[in-house]
């Protein structure tokens, strides 16, 4: 493929992700909730952390519902295109504010989660570890990953998911001990207000749906490219359509697809993203139950919960240090998910400044993340305190941004899922649609179709 063709392919191929891959990314998001979150929740909810988790999952569900609304109505747009299509230049400015707020949100979240991992490394994996040795290597990874685009995350998820899932399952299995119902009782002893308060105080750990909002306009899906039925009608259809104007490796709402295909593929995206969040939530909920089962009311002292729960595992007394390997896989999952959030921060920042220079902004965002703990304090407690002072602002961003996006999306007609025809001409950045056309005109084979882009 000559450079010109490759360039035009890459311009679309780096910014797309398939339903399967986003499922993997979201499912892996459970790993960041297995370290400090249980003990933080136990600080207020004691034995009722599972209730706080359920509450936060419900919030996640609401945000996901807002995403579904936005995706179904205007999923072919990203936030900027959506606002610009509806409100013109003013909409563009509002979109920038939203992106700026989201960038701020993700930066704080990444800083907190990275500090948590530093604490984990310092307390569990190493006898003594270093703030610089934690942050700098990760930021190098984050910058590198972000500069490669969404495709890097999407394809990495395809490989990492299974290893991480095996690690999580292994750790959960090793954590299972004899169930002790007594530790769960009395239920709701901490009081509903404490349960709600501690849940909302730690809302930052949840909110994977915001990642989905960042990916609006970048979802793609594929069906089987060629039917194995080589009857005349099928063959003719393929000759006239698939061979010259492929329908895959393009955004879900590509102009070349008919409404039925778009509906089918958008359903698939919603299904997979929902399953991803469900899987992640289920793991966190089950772990919270295990945590309470093991530690009862003393859970608030059990930092780095995932490493603590396996200590009481009977198999480990015979096997020995077997838990280290799955523990490192969970840690790998956490780092990967934090890298995804880092990408979201960079992605948002580039929209604020209207540039696609991911590398430059990755370095900038990385620098900010590096400096915050130096200012606030390099310990997890210091960074958490910093986050705690901003928790209401961040909660506001978490709720208002999706509401705004979903609200604007509602203004797009439900019957016109192929609204890209009308709106593409109005959108301030219709490059995604143009690039989809360009890549189609290059008469891609189905492997390029299948494999082009995030998939």
């Amino acid at each position, binding site marked *: 493929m*000559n450079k010109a063709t490759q360039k035009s*392919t890459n311009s679309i191929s780096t910014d797309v992700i398939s339903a399967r891959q986003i499922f993997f990314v979201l499912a892996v998001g459970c790993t960041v909730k297995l370290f400090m979150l249980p003990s933080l929740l136990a600080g207020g909810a004691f034995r009722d952390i599972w209730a706080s988790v359920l509450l936060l999952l419900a919030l996640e569900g609401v945000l996901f519902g807002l995403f579904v609304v936005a995706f179904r109505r205007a999923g072919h747009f990203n936030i900027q295109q959506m606002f610009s299509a509806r409100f013109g230049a003013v909409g563009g400015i509002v979109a920038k504010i939203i992106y700026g707020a989201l960038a701020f949100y993700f930066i704080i979240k990444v800083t907190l989660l990275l500090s948590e991992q530093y604490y984990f490394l310092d307390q569990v994996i190493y006898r003594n570890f270093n703030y610089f040795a934690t942050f700098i*290597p990760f930021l190098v990874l984050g910058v590198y990953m972000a500069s490669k685009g969404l495709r890097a995350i999407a*394809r*990495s998820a395809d490989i990492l998911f299974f290893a991480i899932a095996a690690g999580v399952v292994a750790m959960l299995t090793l954590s299972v001990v004899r169930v002790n119902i007594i530790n769960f009782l009395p239920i709701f002893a901490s009081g509903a207000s404490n349960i709600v308060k501690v849940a909302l105080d730690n809302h930052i750990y949840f909110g994977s749906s915001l990642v989905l909002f960042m990916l609006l306009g970048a979802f793609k899906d594929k069906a089987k490219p060629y039917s194995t039925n*080589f009857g005349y009608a099928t063959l003719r259809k393929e000759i006239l359509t698939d061979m010259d104007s492929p329908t895959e490796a393009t955004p879900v709402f590509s102009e070349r697809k008919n409404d039925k295909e778009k509906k089918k593929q958008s359903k698939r995206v919603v299904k997979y993203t929902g399953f991803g969040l469900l899987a992640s939530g289920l793991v966190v909920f089950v772990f919270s139950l295990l945590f309470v089962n093991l530690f009862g009311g003393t859970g608030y002292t059990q930092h780095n919960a995932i490493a603590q729960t396996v200590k009481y595992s009977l198999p480990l007394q015979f096997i020995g240090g077997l838990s280290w390997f799955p523990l490192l896989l969970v840690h790998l999952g956490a*780092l990967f998910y934090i890298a995804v959030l880092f990408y979201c921060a960079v992605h948002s920042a580039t929209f604020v400044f209207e540039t696609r220079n991911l590398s430059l902004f990755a370095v900038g965002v990385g620098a900010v993340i590096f400096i915050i703990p130096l200012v606030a304090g390099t310990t997890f407690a210091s960074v958490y305190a910093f986050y705690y002072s901003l928790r209401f602002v961040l909660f506001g961003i978490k709720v208002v941004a999706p509401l705004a996006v979903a609200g604007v999306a509602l203004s797009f007609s439900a019957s016109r899922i192929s609204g890209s025809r009308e709106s593409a001409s109005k959108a301030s950045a219709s490059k995604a649609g143009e690039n989809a056309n360009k890549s189609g005109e290059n008469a891609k*084979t189905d*492997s*390029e179709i299948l494999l082009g882009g995030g998939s």
Partner: protein
Amino acid sequence: MVTPNKLKQLFSDEASVISREFLYLGKTATVLCLDTVSSKDNINLFIVKPMLDAQAKPAASQGTANSGKGSGKGERGKQGSGESGKGQNSESSSIMEHLKNSVILQTELALESDLQELKKALLMGDAVLFVEGEPDALVVDNKEWAVRGIAEPPTAAVLKGPREGFNENLKDNISLIRRKIKSEKLVVERAVVGRYTNTNVAVMYIDGIADKQIVKDVMRRINEMDIDGILDSAYITKYLETSRYSLFKQVGNTEKPDVAAGKMLEGRICIFVDGSPIALTVPFIMLEDLQSPSDYFTKNSRATMIRGLRILAVFMALYLPAIYVSLVEHHTHVIKFRFLLTIMNASANLPLSPKHEILVVVLFFEILHESALRMPRHIGMAVSVVGALVLGETAVRAGMLSTPAVMIAALSGIALYNVPDAEGTFSTIRILFVIIAGALGFYGLIIGSMMLLVYLATFESYSVPYLAPFSPMVLHDMKDAVLKSNPDELTERPYSIPTKNRQRVAP
């Protein structure tokens, strides 16, 4: 008008141009050929004798040749830069035409009047026939290169399956492929590369299966090559690679015709270089290095197990030394106490830290490996014994190295040779991992691994993702990735390789 002397004068070493003169129809006929690459016997048998016999026949049977439409040029097959059309005399001589059509007993004949083309033909090993007074010369296929016979390739030995291997003769190699793929769709596109070597390059693919854009790209890269000489296919590899400075290869290679044919049936393109027994294949994915031709000649379950072991071996090769260094330098509390005591006892009073120790042992093994490659066979055995004794026994007893380090490095080295085609790349990466693990432990190893994964996940060979079908996941291709399925289950070609003709087996 071309003459033998003019052609001889083009050569710096005129003595190597052999000349055979005789009379034909009262005119001096001269046959030129290049010593050592042309068959002298064939000249006598297929050129001189038929001409003398024809001369001896009654005049009526000789007749005048058709003036002909001048079809000569096209019979020599495609040249990469198009047919040689310079100086073609559309009104060809009747004598030369008569010789070409009725006298010379050879299959490939062509009239030519361009001196440069005649020079090329001589260099290729053809014979050139001049007849006094004729404007054209006749190029007669007469190549007789000294080539190695077809034998089992040393780099791809199998217990079962074909044992043929390519040799250095391009024609033989093309012939081996043609024997495997007897289809009219098999295309051979040719090019001549190298200012001094004028090396023939053949690009083979199956029309209707191979992606045309990739073929075009490959031909463009080959035709744009401007180099003094091509001595091996490795020279061309550098020009075919899309990322020149990457540690990872982007062009596959094989010495076996069945493997090359199999890859072409999947949609790949094969490039052959005259003088090299190694065929190149593009696009290339990493999975190819993890597969072996012998997988297709053993039972599926066994082949699946072996493929899984290879992948495990790759992880062992890459991570075993790094994990050892991490554990001993940074994470001693992870190791079981009794095993930790063993390691501590073995490592006590050593002059080097575990990281440096592993690097030294790995370095010794690399030196040993290089020595073994260059040693004659009868000395190689001694080198192996010396290496094992020196490294394994003496160094440990002398307190220079510890037993665990030697064992880890040896295991890693053995695992590395499970994938001989990627041995160099993985060896380099494992050294990098050891350095990272020595500095940062498991965390550094995880970060390094993720960076490597991101690099490979976004790495492509002719727009084909390098880690396909694992990343991006292509479930269909998993049937022949780690799993080994029956041929009738592989109804479609791999989705990882671009092709518009996906159907392999009739539904």
